[in-house]
């Protein structure tokens, strides 16, 4: 009995020592978890999550102050990635922060109305707006993340969000269909329509069927 207690205590001491040494030896500067979380966020820097940027939100998640479903630009994909990383259950997007966009958007300034006040330049978190006081402002479309922070400050309301047309370089093949359908010639869609329908839909044996994929 006594030996058992002594052995258990000895083991506990030994492992505690090992853990302490390991904590010193393998200590990593900074919070690597926050960086890993930040790598999964879309870097829109829009603030819809309630934090002033993606890094603060990532830090908040790492510290447990924020939930993983606060990011509308990331959408369900980001929530799933965060859930995988943290080992928790994914949950639906918090609708209070906004809805996930289906089509990527960029801001466009109506140059006829712009008065050159630089308020939008100051608002843009990624410096995607080009211009100076009393000079024409324009949004650099390639850098715009679609965060919409420039729309509110504009005193003449000349900024609008426009869907980005994805050209042939950005074309994505859709997920192949697994059941028989007849498809009309599809129009080009900016994002692939996910047609992962389970094979449980009734087959219509009377109509002539072919396997077609969304071209």
């Amino acid at each position, binding site marked *: 009995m006594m030996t058992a207690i002594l052995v258990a205590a000895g083991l506990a001491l030994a492992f505690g020592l090992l853990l302490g040494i390991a904590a010193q030896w393998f200590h990593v500067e900074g919070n690597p978890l926050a960086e890993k979380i*930040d790598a999964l966020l*879309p*870097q829109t*820097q829009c603030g819809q999550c309630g934090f002033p940027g993606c890094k603060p939100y990532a830090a908040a998640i790492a510290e447990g102050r924020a939930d993983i479903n606060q990011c509308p630009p990331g959408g369900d994909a980001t929530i799933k990635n965060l859930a995988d990383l943290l080992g928790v259950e994914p949950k639906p997007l918090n609708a209070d922060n906004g809805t996930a966009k289906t089509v990527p958007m960029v801001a466009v300034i109506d140059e006829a109305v712009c008065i050159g006040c630089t308020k939008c330049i100051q608002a843009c978190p990624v410096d995607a707006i080009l211009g100076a006081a009393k000079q024409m402002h324009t949004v650099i479309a390639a850098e715009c993340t679609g965060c919409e922070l420039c729309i509110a400050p504009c005193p003449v309301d000349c900024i609008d969000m426009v869907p980005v047309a994805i050209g042939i370089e*950005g*074309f994505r093949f859709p997920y*192949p269909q697994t059941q028989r359908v007849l498809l009309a010639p*599809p129009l080009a869609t900016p994002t692939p329509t996910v047609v992962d329908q389970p094979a449980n839909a009734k*087959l219509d044996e009377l109509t002539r069927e072919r396997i077609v994929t969304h*071209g």
Partner: protein
Amino acid sequence: MVKPPQLKVPQARFSFHGGIHPPENKTSTRDRPIKALPLMPRYVLPLHMHIGAPARAVVAVGQRVKKGQVLAQATDFISASIHAPTSGVISAITEHAIPHPGGLGAMAIILDADGRDEAIEPMTPWPDFTAQTPTELRGRLREAGIVGLGGAVFPTAAKLATGSAASVHTLILNGAECEPYITCDDRLMREQPFEIVQGAAIVLHMMGASRCLIGIEDNKPEAIATLAEASRADARFETIAVPTRYPAGGEKQLIKVLTNVEVPRGRRATEYGLLCLNVATVAAIYRAVVLGEPMIDRIVTVTGAGIVQPDNFRVPLGTKISDVIAAAGGYVAGTDRLIMGGPMMGFALHEDDVPVIKATNCLLALRPQDRPAEPAPQPCIRCSLCAEACPADLLPQQLYWYARAKQFDRTVEYHLFDCIECGVCSAVCPSHLPLVDYYRFAKTELWAAERDQSKASLARTRFEFRNERLERIKTEREAALNKKRQNLATNTAAIEARDAPAGATVGTFDDAFGTYQPQPVSAPAAGLDTAALVITDSAVAAARARAKARRAQLDADRAVQAHANIQIDAQEATEEPAKAQAEPSKNNPT
């Protein structure tokens, strides 16, 4: 079949793993000589008919151009120029439908032919090409817009510029044409062997190579005999018969069959001392170097039971496919599928109002009765017939499982990007799974994720830099303000330097392509932006209209509100005395 003349041609000694032997279906066009097409009224020339950066238009709407005149210049290192297939007037530079599996459109130059078919002065002919340096010859290829005509449409000048010239010792000409139905290379080899052999000689000179192997599948005995005869005088050439098996014509597979070298993905054949070009590409090289003609046409096989008279045509680039089909007699009643390319690697077109581009080697029209019934896909039974047939030695069933589950990192582990999308796996699968569709889906998803990732890190960098900058502004006000303006200007300049500049910067790759003078631009460039993000004019106009409407609405609302406020004030003014009377003790102004 005509018995070939008695010329002993060696058989290929090596083979590749897998492959299948689908029905060849070449009899309807293999003996039809190449025909010219009549002039058509309109030609559509997409700016992006090749791998690499799109070309930049150097003509303006309304400009009159001549046949062979450059319409768009190559921009980046890997890029190609576009030339006018006939003389006429540029009627528009706009988005137009192009052959694309997703039915997307792209920027294109619309040329209205004037019927005169006047040609400009050719580039300086170099019949004695050995006097030119490889750099000058590469410049000529780039100027002429030569791209690989085997289907990959890789700019040939860039392909030949890879690696030092001395390291390539063997040129391989790809005359295999392994895909069913297609006979354009077969006819070219039979009708224009001299151009092919001369073109190959030019490339041998350019690369400093010492021998040339011509690989032709043994279902083309006439072509084998013709090319063997045409190259007999030059001891550097050797024509080799390759056993007919799809996909023997894949570049890596042909290299393996002829030389037993396996070129892995991510490496060029030039790193192994080899260079492989399609026979049509070298024929175009001959025309560009010796005759000074740019690439303005290509041979297209129009075939299938859905075509009234299958044939082979020399088609000017930009010809509408509907015009080409009409020249072949039109569709047979009941045709419901038009495929660009062959039955294994081609894709179905949404409409035939799209132009012939540099990659169009075949137009295949089929009725439902001409192809086997396409049953619904069943679950994968893990029989591994796909792995046995894969010419890249992959495990297609694993790629399928993971692509289906959208676990894309596992697909990369199983070498997804080594897949050449030849379609053999889909063809042998007993469960009729559209395997290649899954791989294409996985690939584009991975590329999109990569793009999103790089965009996100760029955005993060810009955000962090901005925060840093604002910090500095806080501490140094006056100098920081100037610095901020300076920084904004620097960023813009950096962005402009990073993106394709609006001005013409062609000719900066002097080391590779020589200092050639592009044709003088007589009209200002149309200032097109053919980057990946294209905001169409209509979208911007719509946005402006919406903004205007909203402003008008806001103004109206404000006016209404102001009016209402006046009314309320007036009402309150009348109510106050009443209220004051009701509650004399309280005299709070609401």
